[in-house]
């Protein structure tokens, strides 16, 4: 299965990029801040004792790992946490599923208790 192998190689590459990107404390911190809200590259540079170029390099690593994306707003370059729309829809529908699975299980339990009571009466 050539296709499967290629896919898994891609997955591995993506994982390497992801873990590589998050293996650095400054990049983890940038990612965490970006997650709390959109922030500009220049505002980030003020937060760390490193050059603007160094911050830009860190952001580029996070971008390659598809953890963040950069958007131009006026003269500012804004860093935002990247999640793909399909992934978000999946996550949202998974939440609905687990919520309703729980409810259905609880209804089933109540029905079981009904039967227990019936037996007790007879």
């Amino acid at each position: 299965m050539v296709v499967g192998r290629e896919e898994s190689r891609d997955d591995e590459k993506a994982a390497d990029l992801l873990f590589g990107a998050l293996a650095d404390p400054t990049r983890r911190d940038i990612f965490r801040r970006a997650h709390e809200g959109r922030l500009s590259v220049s505002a980030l540079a003020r937060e760390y004792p490193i050059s603007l170029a160094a911050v830009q390099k860190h952001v580029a690593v996070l971008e390659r790992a598809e953890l963040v994306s950069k958007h131009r707003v006026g003269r500012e370059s804004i860093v935002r946490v990247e999640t793909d729309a399909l992934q978000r829809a999946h996550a949202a529908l998974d939440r609905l599923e687990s919520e309703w699975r729980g409810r259905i299980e609880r209804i089933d339990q109540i029905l079981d208790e009904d039967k227990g009571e019936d037996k007790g009466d007879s």
Partner: protein
Amino acid sequence: MPVTDVNKDLDALTMTITAEFDAGAERIWEMWSDPRQLERWWGPPSYPATFVDHDLSPGGRAAYFMTSPEGQKFHGWWRIEEVDPPGRLRFEDGFADDEGKPNEEMPTTIATVTIAEADGATTMSIESKFGSREGMEKVVEMGMEQGMIEALGQIDALVAGEKA
């Protein structure tokens, strides 16, 4: 497991779950129409629901709150769109503020419940749909935040462990 099927439509943003119960349709309908029974299953055991209002008629409303283990109350509401006992119920479900007033900023979902009895067993299917794509995005943001923060915490712990 009573669940027989789950189907998700990523474009329409709907999740449909089907379950089969060893009971009649009237009994299953009671789970919805009797607020005291509804309270036994609507919220998870750690967040039990209390219904303070429950009017299952078209245009009618229900109001409830779920209580956290710490005693914090989370309010919610239903707006009934369609009702046809014991076969069909359609309602919008949303969040409310502490006074029970609907919070328009928060996402809503629309549930369509279909109940059908055949050969002594009853099939209930629920189609749950996000009121809007923005609402769905909000739900994900709220959940994702927690997940990512936890994941980052684990990575931090791993890295700290390596250093130690």
